[in-house]
């Protein structure tokens, strides 16, 4: 069965410092990986997905199949980045009915001024 591990429950950095939120997964096939974010008093929302290979709000994440990791990085953290971040994995055939998300437990990022 697939599993997503986010080893840090809490991560605190200062504004302007680099930030890396770790995500490791276990799945023998070719998964799709996502980062979801929940800002204070807002809904859970998609931040980025590995197949898009894009930078959203300065964040990037690279899928490393050898290390089974999908770490989220930003070179210069901002106070507005403070939020709960969830890594998620999807297995199943894209477009198929058995395509579903498995979430990690999340990392609470706090960016201090």
């Amino acid at each position: 069965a697939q599993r997503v591990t986010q080893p840090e429950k809490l991560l605190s950095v200062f504004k302007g410092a680099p930030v890396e939120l770790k995500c490791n997964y276990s799945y023998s096939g070719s998964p799709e990986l996502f980062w979801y974010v929940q800002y204070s008093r807002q809904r859970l929302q998609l931040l980025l997905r590995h197949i898009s290979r894009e930078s959203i709000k300065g964040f990037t994440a690279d899928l490393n199949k050898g290390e089974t990791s999908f770490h989220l990085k930003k070179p210069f953290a901002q106070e507005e980045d403070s939020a709960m971040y969830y890594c998620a994995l999807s297995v199943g055939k894209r477009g198929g009915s058995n395509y579903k998300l498995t979430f990690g437990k999340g990392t609470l990022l706090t960016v201090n001024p």
Partner: protein
Amino acid sequence: EAGVAQSPRYKIIEKRQSVAFWCNPISGHATLYWYQQILGQGPKLLIQFQNNGVVDDSQLPKDRFSAERLKGVDSTLKIQPAKLEDSAVYLCASSHRTGGYEQYFGPGTRLTVT
């Protein structure tokens, strides 16, 4: 476009009582999901609908949980009878279609079972 709507936002019940949650997905979204998020954990999929048919309910505790999506739009999730361990946030999400399309989440219903 209006987002996913859920009600109630908060509910407190005693164990062994029944409770129901309602979800209205984004207009035109064929796929609807119910997740359970226990404090300190990530969301866990309970059930997935494609229009009004169930696609996946493998993690739904069917002895006490039930869900339906009549007419392929709104959905209700029911717990009967509730247990203490059912205390959680219940999230509804919808997507244009199943299979990799972005999921849009509602605000959730926070259930406390005493």
